[in-house]
C-alpha cells in the first residue's frame, strides 16, 4: 500500500495519524495454536498489521477467522489451551510475547484496555458497578479512596450514563444491556490506556443502542488520543468507524488497507464476497442506487419479488394469506412469594396487519417489541388473548385436530438458532422425512425421493443425509431447517430471525435461497427480524413494532425512504454505513 493512497483515502477520521509516527502496536507473523483432544489447530497464521497511536483499526472476519484470537493474544488472555507459537507482538517497542503472563498483566488496564463482547457476563454480579471501576483504578495505582470514587462517577458520566452518582451504587442486574456496556467502556478507559481493544462491543445490544454506544466510544477515544482495535463481523460498521481495516479469513490476514479504499477497490476475493454479502452495505447500495439518479439496483442486493414485478397494490390487498386483526397478547407474570399477586404484561398490543399472498412481509423491532410473539401466534403455538388471526379466511390452528393438521401442513416455521431447531438425535434424513411420515406422504421410496428433491432445492449434498446436526455448519443446518419446512409444500413460511445467527456470507446465501424458493414456489413469507438492512433486501412490506404496537407500516420503499415515526428513523439511522460513499457511479 503506497503512502499516497493511504493519505488520500483515509475514512472518517480526518488527518491521517500515520504520518511519520512509529506504530503503537505492531503485529508481525503472529501464529496462535490451540491444543485440543483432536491435536493442535492453528487459529492465527502469519498475521501482520500495525496500529498507529490514536488510530482506529478494525479487524473484520466471520466466526472462526481468528479475529478475536488475535485480540486475545495481544492482551495476553488466550484460552488455557492456546499459545502464541510464532511471530512478535510489539507494543510501543517491547515484545509482549517475551514478557510472560505477569508482564502483560501489569500492562493490562494501564496500557491496553479492553471492552468485551458480552455486557451481560462481564460484570461481577455480586459487586456494585462503581466498586468494580474503583477496583480497576486502585489496582492500577491511578487513584485511591475518595479520589477513585470521584473519578469513577466522572468516568461513568463520560461514558454517557445518566445519573452516574446513583448508578455507581447499583448492581449489574439493575442495569440494561446498553448501560452495562457503558460501564464496561468506562472501565476499559478508566486508566487512560493508549490502546483499547473492543471485541464486538455492541453485537449483543439492540440496534438503536449500538449506535449511541459506538458514537460515545468514538468521541471518548478521539478526545484522549486512544488507539482502538475494533473487532467486528460487520464490514459496514468497520468502514464507518475505523481508519483502516484488516480483513481476516481462516486465520490469515487476507487484506489490509484504509477503510474507504478497501470498500472502493477490494483486492482479495474474500473481501469482495464480504463486501457483496454485508447487508448494511447492500442496504446502502440500494439507497445510493435509488437516489443517486439512474443507477440500477444490483439484482444481488434486492431480493424481494416485487423488485422485478411491481406489485399491483389493489390485487395484493384483496388476496391476503394472513389477516391479523386487533390482536393482543397478555402474559401473566407470577408474583413474588406465596401471596404475591401476579402482574400482567402486554407483549402484543392491538396489532393488525395482513400478509399479501406470494410476497414477503417483515416485522421489525428490537428485543422485547413483541415481534416473536406475533410470529408464534400466527404459527398457532401461542393463543392470542384477544383478536383474531385468519389464515386463508379460516382461524389459525383450526377448530379440531383434523383442521389443525391441515393448517400445520400449510404454515411452517424456520427459527433463528440452527443449533437448537433440529433434534440432535435425528439424522438429516430422518429430520426432513419426519413431516412426510407424520402426514402420511406416500410410500417409503416416494418419501426418499421427496427428501432428495428437497435437499436439491436447498442446495445440500445428499451425502449429508446420514449425518447428524452436530456435524453440520450453521448455514447447512439452516438449509436443513428450510428443507424440513418446505417438505409439505406450505403456503406460508414464518422466518423468525432466520438468518440472524449466521455469518454474513452464509446469511446472504440463505437470503438468496429464500428469495429463489419464493420465486419458484410462490411462497409467502413472514420475516421477523431486528436487522433493517436485511429487511430492506428481502421484504416487500414492513411493519415496525415498538413495545407491542405496530408504529409504522408500509412498503419497504415507503418506510425506508419516508419514515414517519421517530422510532423508525432511529432504527434506520442505526444501520451501520449509512453515510458511506461506496464509490458507486450513477448511470
Amino acid at each position, binding site marked *: 500500500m503506497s503512502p499516497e493512497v493511504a493519505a488520500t483515502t483515509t475514512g472518517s477520521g480526518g488527518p491521517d495519524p500515520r504520518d511519520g509516527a512509529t506504530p503503537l502496536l505492531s503485529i508481525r507473523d503472529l501464529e496462535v495454536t490451540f491444543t485440543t483432544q483432536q491435536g493442535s489447530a492453528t487459529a492465527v497464521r502469519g498475521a501482520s498489521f500495525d496500529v498507529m497511536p490514536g488510530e482506529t483499526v478494525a479487524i473484520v472476519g466471520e466466526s472462526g477467522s481468528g479475529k478475536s484470537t488475535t485480540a486475545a493474544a495481544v492482551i495476553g488472555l488466550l484460552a488455557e489451551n492456546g499459545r502464541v507459537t510464532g511471530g512478535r507482538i510489539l507494543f510501543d517497542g517491547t515484545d509482549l510475547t517475551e514478557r510472560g503472563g505477569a508482564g502483560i498483566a501489569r500492562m493490562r488496564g494501564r496500557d491496553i484496555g479492553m471492552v468485551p463482547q458480552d455486557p451481560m457476563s462481564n460484570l461481577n454480579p455480586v459487586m456494585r458497578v462503581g466498586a468494580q471501576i474503583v477496583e480497576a483504578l486502585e489496582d492500577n495505582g491511578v487513584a485511591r479512596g475518595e479520589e477513585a470514587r470521584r473519578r469513577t462517577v466522572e468516568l461513568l458520566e463520560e461514558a454517557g450514563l445518566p445519573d452516574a452518582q446513583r448508578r455507581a451504587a447499583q448492581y449489574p442486574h439493575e442495569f440494561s444491556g446498553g448501560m452495562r456496556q457503558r460501564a464496561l467502556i468506562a472501565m476499559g478507559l478508566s486508566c487512560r490506556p493508549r490502546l483499547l481493544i473492543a471485541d464486538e462491543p455492541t453485537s449483543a445490544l439492540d440496534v438503536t443502542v449500538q449506535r449511541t454506544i459506538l458514537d460515545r466510544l468514538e468521541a471518548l477515544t478521539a478526545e484522549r488520543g486512544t488507539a482502538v482495535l475494533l473487532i467486528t463481523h460487520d464490514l459496514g460498521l468497520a468502514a464507518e468507524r475505523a481508519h483502516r481495516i484488516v480483513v481476516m479469513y481462516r486465520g490469515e490476514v487476507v487484506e489490509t488497507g484504509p477503510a474507504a479504499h478497501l470498500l472502493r477497490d477490494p483486492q482479495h476475493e474474500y473481501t469482495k464476497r464480504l463486501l457483496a454479502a454485508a447487508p448494511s452495505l447492500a442496504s446502502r447500495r440500494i439507497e445510493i442506487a435509488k437516489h443517486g439518479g439512474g443507477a440500477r439496483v444490483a439484482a444481488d442486493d434486492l431480493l424481494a419479488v416485487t423488485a422485478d414485478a411491481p406489485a399491483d397494490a389493489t390485487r395484493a390487498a384483496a388476496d391476503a394469506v394472513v389477516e391479523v386483526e386487533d390482536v393482543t397478547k397478555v402474559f401473566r407474570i407470577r408474583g413474588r412469594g406465596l401471596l404475591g399477586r401476579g402482574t400482567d404484561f402486554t407483549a402484543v398490543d392491538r396489532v393488525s396487519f395482513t400478509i399479501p399472498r406470494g410476497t414477503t412481509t417483515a416485522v421489525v423491532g428490537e428485543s422485547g417489541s413483541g415481534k416473536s410473539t406475533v410470529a408464534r401466534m400466527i404459527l398457532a403455538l401461542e393463543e392470542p388473548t384477544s383478536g383474531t388471526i385468519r389464515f386463508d379466511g379460516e382461524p389459525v390452528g383450526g377448530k379440531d385436530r383434523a383442521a389443525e393438521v391441515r393448517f400445520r401442513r400449510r404454515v411452517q416455521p424456520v427459527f433463528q438458532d440452527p443449533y437448537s431447531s433440529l433434534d440432535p*438425535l435425528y439424522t438429516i434424513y430422518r429430520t426432513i422425512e419426519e*413431516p412426510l411420515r407424520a402426514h402420511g406422504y406416500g410410500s417409503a421410496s416416494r418419501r426418499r425421493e421427496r427428501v432428495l428433491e428437497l435437499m436439491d432445492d436447498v442446495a445440500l449434498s445428499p451425502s*449429508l443425509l446420514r449425518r*447428524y446436526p452436530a456435524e*453440520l455448519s450453521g448455514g447447512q443446518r439452516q438449509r436443513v431447517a428450510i428443507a424440513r419446512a418446505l417438505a409439505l409444500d406450505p403456503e406460508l413460511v414464518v422466518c423468525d430471525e432466520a438468518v440472524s445467527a449466521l455469518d454474513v456470507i452464509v446469511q446472504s446465501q440463505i437470503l*438468496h435461497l429464500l428469495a429463489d424458493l419464493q420465486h419458484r414456489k410462490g411462497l409467502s413469507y413472514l420475516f421477523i427480524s431486528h436487522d433493517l438492512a436485511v429487511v430492506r433486501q428481502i421484504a416487500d412490506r414492513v411493519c415496525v413494532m415498538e413495545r407491542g404496537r405496530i408504529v409504522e407500516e408500509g412498503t419497504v420503499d415507503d418506510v425506508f425512504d419516508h419514515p414517519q415515526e421517530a422510532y423508525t428513523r432511529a432504527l434506520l439511522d442505526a444501520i451501520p454505513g449509512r453515510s458511506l460513499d461506496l464509490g458507486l457511479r450513477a448511470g
Partner: protein
Amino acid sequence: MSTEPAAQAVVAATAPTGPGGRAGDEGASIWRVAARRLRRNPGAILGAVIVLAFVLVALLAPVIAPYGPQELPGRAEIRPTFIPGPSPEHLLGLDRYGGDLFSKLVWGARASLVIGVLSTMLGLLGGALVGLLAGAFGGWVDTATMRLVDLMLSVPSLLLAVSIAAVIGQSPTAVVIAIGVVQVPIFARLLRGTMLAQRGQDYVLAARSLGLSRRTVTMSHVLPNSLGPVIVQATLMLATAVIEAAALSFLGLGGGSPTTAEWGRMLTAAQNELEVAPRLAMWPGALIAITALGFTLFGEALREALDPKTRKR
C-alpha cells in the same frame, strides 16, 4: 443459483472442526461421539475396567469360585481363637464358619450386582414414570407429583430404605425394593427437569408446527433427548445401590443366615473377628469401595462425554 460453487466452498470452510469435522458419510450420533470421548478419558477406562471385571466375576461366579455360596469346606479347621489364613486350598483363607473367603467374595459380587441392578432398574422405571407424567402434562399433575417427590427427598435416603425394609421384612427382595423406592424421587425430578428444559427448545416448537401430536412430540423428541442425564444418574446410582445394599445387609435387614455370601453381611460377621482376622473385614470392605469407585468414575466420565457444553468444542 449462480453463487453456489462459492457457497459450497464457504460452507466447507466454516464447517466445525472437532468431533464432527471428519470425512465420510457415516453420521456420528451423540452416543457415538460420547463413546469416542470416553475412550480418550483415562478415568473412564479405569472405571470401565473395574465395572467390567465386577460384572464378569458376578456372571462367571460358578466357574471362578472353587466352592458354592453356602459350602463350608473348612469347618473342621476352625478354632474359637484361630481362623486359618491363606493357604494353597483356600486362597484368602477361611471365615469364622469355615467358608472359603475367596469363593464367598466371588458369590458376593453376584449378590451385589443383582441387588444393585434390580434396585436401580426399579428406581429408574418408577422415577421415569413419575417424571414423565409430570414433565409431559405439567400443570397441577406436575405440582402434585413434585410435592410428593420433595416429601420423599426430605427423608434421609438410608433412613427411608431402612424403614421400608423393616416394614416389608428381612429378605433380599426387601433390600431391592427399599433401595429402588429411595431412588424413585431422584430419577423423577431429574427427568422432569431435563424434559422441561428440552420442551422450550426450538426443535420441539418445530415438531409441534409440523402437526405432530403431543404424544409423538413427547415420546420421539423430548424424551429421547432427556435420557442422557438419566442414564448417567443410573450409573452413579448403581454405586450408591451397592453401598446401600451392603449397609442394609450390615444392619441385618437383608435376611438369610450369617453364612450368606453377601459383602455387607460378611462385614457384619467380621466385626467380632477384627482382632483375630482383620482380613475378613478388609476384603469385602475394599471390594465395596472399589466397585462403587468404578461405577462412579464411569458415570462421571459419561456425564462429561454427554455434556452439551463441552460437546460443541
